[in-house]
């Protein structure tokens, strides 16, 4: 047991490829927990960031600066009465949120947090991700239908038409990125998520900058399509609250409703990680072609510690700036403890970064590498998450026919054109 546990640490492959079921299970658990925590954090962050966009404070009461608000929300949703409308289709109503949730979480099996930091590396990784994430719409459609009510039905119809049409542009944008992976000696590309990042590593360039501006256009197409794919503003027609009250989840409440939210946020993270993998160099740190000297490697490996140190400093500052009134005593203490935890984490990361600074096969070095990979990947995904919030605060909502027009008449021709031009340029370059 222990040997099988330890033996994997030195491996170069993801557990799925190495056939190491124990580690695969551990990775699955880590990712499941990590995504759930990320969703909770995202919930807090969205409410907070949105509030600050809108000259509000957002949650402030539950915990210091509302840090415990997501937990309070989750508890509330768990304890809430779970209503199934009498006229609803009981079984489908029950299954619908699970379909969405399963689809959203299954894609994480192939998300490459690092060259070996993934549950598995399928050779059709990107196809698998697109396919399974497209199944999420089934949850929305069935939920809307099973509610047996007009608003959810319209929401479901909107969402199915929207997703099917945006998937086409999305797929073509992905194909143009995959074409770029084949620009090597052997001329064979790859669909594997890890392979795509490794191709960028070999070519020494993120695909967003490849054949400028072709890569950029494809990336922008994907970045727009992924917002539509996840039903977020300005494409949140399926749950447009001013038109359809709550769209497909109008009749849902309590735990089942929270499953939809969980699925939505998990899907957002999933599509963002596709974008990061395909165009933003996945786990690579910035400028991998220029700044690859060992000194630079060391500097970049300090970033995780610096980030957490910065967060700790912000939290300490927040604790220090709290009003002196005795009412805030507990909150201040709580925030200070939180800051201290972040600080300890930062110190640990610093220790690991320094201990593993030599690129050898020692455990510390491998640990340092792994942390770096995951850090850069998660950081890039986090930028997308912030963009999702930013979009929501800034833009009005598209109308259904305009959404279709943008999808079919603008995005599809552009992505087809980019694909063709990429292919031509690729052949010419070779």
């Amino acid at each position, binding site marked *: 047991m222990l040997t099988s546990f330890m033996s994997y640490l030195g491996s170069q492959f993801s557990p799925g490829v190495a056939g190491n079921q124990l580690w695969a299970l551990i990775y699955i658990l880590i990712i499941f927990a990590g995504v759930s925590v990320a969703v909770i954090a995202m919930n807090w962050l969205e409410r907070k960031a949105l509030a600050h966009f809108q000259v509000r404070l957002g949650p402030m009461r539950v915990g210091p600066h509302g840090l415990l608000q997501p937990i309070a929300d989750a508890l509330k949703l768990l304890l809430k009465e779970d209503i199934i409308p009498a006229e609803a289709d009981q079984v489908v109503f029950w299954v619908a949120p699970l379909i969405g949730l399963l689809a959203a979480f299954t894609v994480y099996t192939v998300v490459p947090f690092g060259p070996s930091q993934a549950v598995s590396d399928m050779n059709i990784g990107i*196809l698998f991700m*697109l396919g399974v994430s497209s199944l999420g719409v*089934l949850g929305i459609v069935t939920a809307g239908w099973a509610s047996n009510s007009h608003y959810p039905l319209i929401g479901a*119809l909107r969402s199915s038409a929207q997703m*099917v049409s945006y998937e086409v542009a999305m797929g073509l944008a992905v194909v143009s990125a995959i074409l770029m992976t084949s620009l090597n000696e052997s001329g064979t590309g790859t669909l594997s998520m890890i392979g795509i990042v490794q191709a960028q590593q070999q070519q020494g360039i993120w695909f967003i900058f490849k054949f400028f501006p072709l890569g950029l256009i494809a990336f922008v197409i994907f970045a727009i399509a992924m917002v539509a794919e996840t039903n977020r503003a300005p494409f949140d027609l399926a749950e447009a609250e001013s038109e359809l009250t709550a769209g497909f989840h109008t009749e849902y409440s309590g735990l089942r409703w929270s499953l939809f939210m969980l699925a939505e946020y998990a899907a957002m993270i999933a599509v963002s990680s596709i974008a990061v993998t395909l165009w933003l160099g996945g786990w690579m740190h910035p400028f991998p072609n220029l700044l690859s000297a060992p000194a630079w490697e060391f500097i970049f490996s300090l970033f995780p510690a610096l980030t957490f140190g910065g967060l700790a400093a912000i939290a300490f500052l927040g604790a220090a700036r709290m009003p002196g009134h005795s009412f805030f005593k507990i909150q201040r203490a709580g925030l200070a403890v939180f800051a201290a935890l972040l600080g300890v984490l930062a110190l640990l990361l610093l220790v690991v970064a320094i201990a593993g600074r030599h690129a050898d096969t020692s455990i510390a070095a491998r640990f340092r590498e792994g942390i770096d990979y995951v850090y850069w990947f998660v950081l890039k995904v986090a930028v997308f998450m912030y963009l999702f919030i930013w979009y929501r605060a800034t833009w009005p909502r598209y109308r259904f026919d305009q959404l279709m027009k943008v999808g079919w008449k603008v995005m599809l021709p552009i992505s087809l054109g980019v694909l063709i031009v990429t292919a031509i340029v690729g052949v010419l370059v070779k």
Partner: protein
Amino acid sequence: MTPEMTPVATPFFFYLLSGLAIIGGVLVITRRNAVHSALALIVTLLAVSGLYLMLYAPFVAGVQIIVYAGGIMVLFLFVIMLVNIERTVKERQFNRIWPAGVLAAAALLGLFVSVYVKGKTLLSDPVTGKPLWPDPTISLPDSSNTQQIGVMLYGNYMFAFEIASLLLLVAILGAVIMAKKRI
């Protein structure tokens, strides 16, 4: 190089997926509610895609999920949802020619069984002389599967492929003309 893939619990997954596919298929034709049928069909399609994976055809499996389960079935549901369920539930499930259907199904089953039995024992490839039934122990190189399909489709079967796409285009145009009030 990746290490040798070691299939895990293969028979278990084979029977699980085939069972799911069959149960789903039976549910598709027995459910009175069209949406339930469609959901059962999705289960079948996903199970079949799992079987493709086990046959070292990952590309086909991925396309099966994207195109059928994610695309076509969503459109199916889109249409079915607009149908008045109340009326369809009351309608008769089978019409009078079901014995003919059973007969056809039995004939197909007979064909499958005979091919299986004969293919395993008697038939052989006329050119190479090898048995037509592949050796179960053979493991195909799975990494180049997608590439091979691409070479086949855009090389050997280019003409057929393009004809098929033209046919689809004609069908799309026809549907648009029939559905649109004014072009």
